[in-house]
């Protein structure tokens, strides 16, 4: 049954020549939006397994909407989301929560909630009844705090932490969910450069050491190019380009997607393409 579904999925994505799905998640002909307003009219998207995928694009292009649709935060109006090849809408939400964790944009913890309490809420999909934490639950919670270096903040209140610490605490909660896939909506927004780097290095470590599939929405293109194995560039509810950093961080793609005139070079430290400078295309036309 599952195999036929996967087969169908792959047939509909005719560009995919593989026989077994290398994708942790796929969206097939997704239509996503809110009751009156469709944000994404029709889109097929694939999140490669074991990789870091960045979704980039200008404001209002539907990046967050796509992520929310994939994570069932907003229902898809039509189309199918496949989670490890299985249609997600046939799966109980608790089972999905064991495979897929989500960190939404700017989450807020109630005043006084400790980091350890917050992280332990990540164990929800594994608990039954009243839900006292089992020994295994507690070990996973401690491990999630160690991995995000929030273990020394365990008894502090989440709302009293700095922006970077707080974001690490929320990532720890997602980690406590113990899922192979983590989706993050703008995890670096509102953080300074050092803390942005810290979050992305944490995600990279989780990807490499714990083999997590990670997909995130991010605005900083240089950071996206530096940390992502795969990039999806969106505009007006459509995917314009997708591929590796080398394929996406090019002047022509940046012109298409962001209407930017960009100077791209190889970063000598990371060997990744990086934008040295950029200007608006319109301005350039006006100056001529």
């Amino acid at each position, binding site marked *: 049954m599952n195999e036929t579904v996967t087969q169908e999925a792959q047939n509909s994505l005719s560009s995919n020549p593989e026989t077994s799905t290398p994708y942790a998640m796929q969206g097939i002909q997704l239509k996503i939006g*809110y*009751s*009156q307003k469709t944000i994404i009219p029709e889109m097929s998207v694939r999140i490669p397994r074991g990789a870091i995928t960045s979704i980039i694009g200008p404001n209002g292009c539907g990046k967050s909407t796509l992520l*929310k649709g994939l*994570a*069932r*935060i907003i229902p898809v109006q039509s189309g199918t989301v496949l989670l490890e090849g299985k249609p997600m809408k046939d799966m109980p*939400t*608790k*089972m*999905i*929560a*064991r495979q*897929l*964790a*989500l*960190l*939404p944009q700017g*989450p*807020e*913890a*109630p*005043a*006084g*909630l*400790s980091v350890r*309490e917050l992280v332990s*809420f*990540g164990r*929800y*999909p594994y*608990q039954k*009844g*009243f*839900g006292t934490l089992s020994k295994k639950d507690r070990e996973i919670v401690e491990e999630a705090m160690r991995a995000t270096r929030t273990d020394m903040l365990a*008894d502090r209140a989440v709302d009293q932490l700095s922006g970077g610490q707080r974001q690490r605490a929320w990532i720890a909660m*997602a980690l406590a*969910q113990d899922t192979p896939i983590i989706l993050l909506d703008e995890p670096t927004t509102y953080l300074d450069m050092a803390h942005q780097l810290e979050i992305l290095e944490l995600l990279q470590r989780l990807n490499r050491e714990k083999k997590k599939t990670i997909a995130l929405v991010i605005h900083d293109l240089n950071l996206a190019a530096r940390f992502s194995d795969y990039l999806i560039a969106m505009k007006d509810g459509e995917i314009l380009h997708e591929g590796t950093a080398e394929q996406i961080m090019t002047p022509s793609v940046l012109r298409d997607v962001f209407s930017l005139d960009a100077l791209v070079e190889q970063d000598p430290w990371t060997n990744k393409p990086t934008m040295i400078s950029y200007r608006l295309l319109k301005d350039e036309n006006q100056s001529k």
Partner: protein
Amino acid sequence: MKRKRYALTCTILILLLIAGIALDLNAGYAKIPLSELFTGNPVLLNLRLPRVLACVLVGAGLSLSGSVLQGVTRNDMAEPGLLGINAGAGLAIAAYILFVQGGHTNYSVMMPILAFIGSGTVFLIEYRLASKNGKVSSKKLLLVGVAISLAVSSLTTILMLRMPDSEYAFVQNWIAGNIWGADWQGVIMLTVGILLIGSVIYYFSRTLNGLMLGHSIAVGIGIDPPKASRRFLTGAIALSALCASVGGGLSFIGLIAPHLCRRLVGPNYQNLLPACALCGGVIMVFADIISRTWFLPYEMPVGITAAIIGAPYFLYLLVKE
């Protein structure tokens, strides 16, 4: 460390509650030694004790109800009184007294059921009005609640105008928040109801924790927020309706007690709910003592005292926002 603090807080609340009950038993026109409780003094045993216990239970129930409403709507100011849920109960009960009991004001077991219907209807209307595209704005819910609450109270007043003077005074008193129906039957009904609904809510407190973190997080960890919210809201309304049928229009208890408790034990519902029940009982019993001693020879409805304490607290919260 945290566990110790929690245990200590609860112990203090329990001691305060016991002290409050003892004091309240003697708060009245005639002073009676407490030892006569064991010799079977009928004033203590059949009048004061059930009234004091009803008072404690109503406080506990309203506090639990408020804390659940606040978590589900993610609004710290959601509360059965302010949301007009109690006003809905009042209207239903006033209508019952007028049309069914023909103006007689004896308590009946129909009242909590009617109160639930009245409260539920009011809340459903508010929920409809405050939601757009299937999403409920918690700020709008509160504003709609205040408006509906006023409208419903006016309707109740219109009904009351058709009542004879004595019944009018009685319902007026009840709306101001006066513990009535405070016989053993009422106490047993409150105890059973609060224990039953309270334990179900407590059993699912981790779902309440998830809802408190917002829609996206809740969905992410595997909660179905609309379904879970509906269940918790039904429980909260049932609790407040039960309390309103005995205690009348008590405002602010469901606001103050959960707030104090969040300060004391944190927002985790597994700790918060028991603390709320205790704290609500403590506040009500002390408000009752004040009502019965400061204005002798008159006894003020405890709801007035609660409002006098609660209104400034509410304003403080508003200003702090």
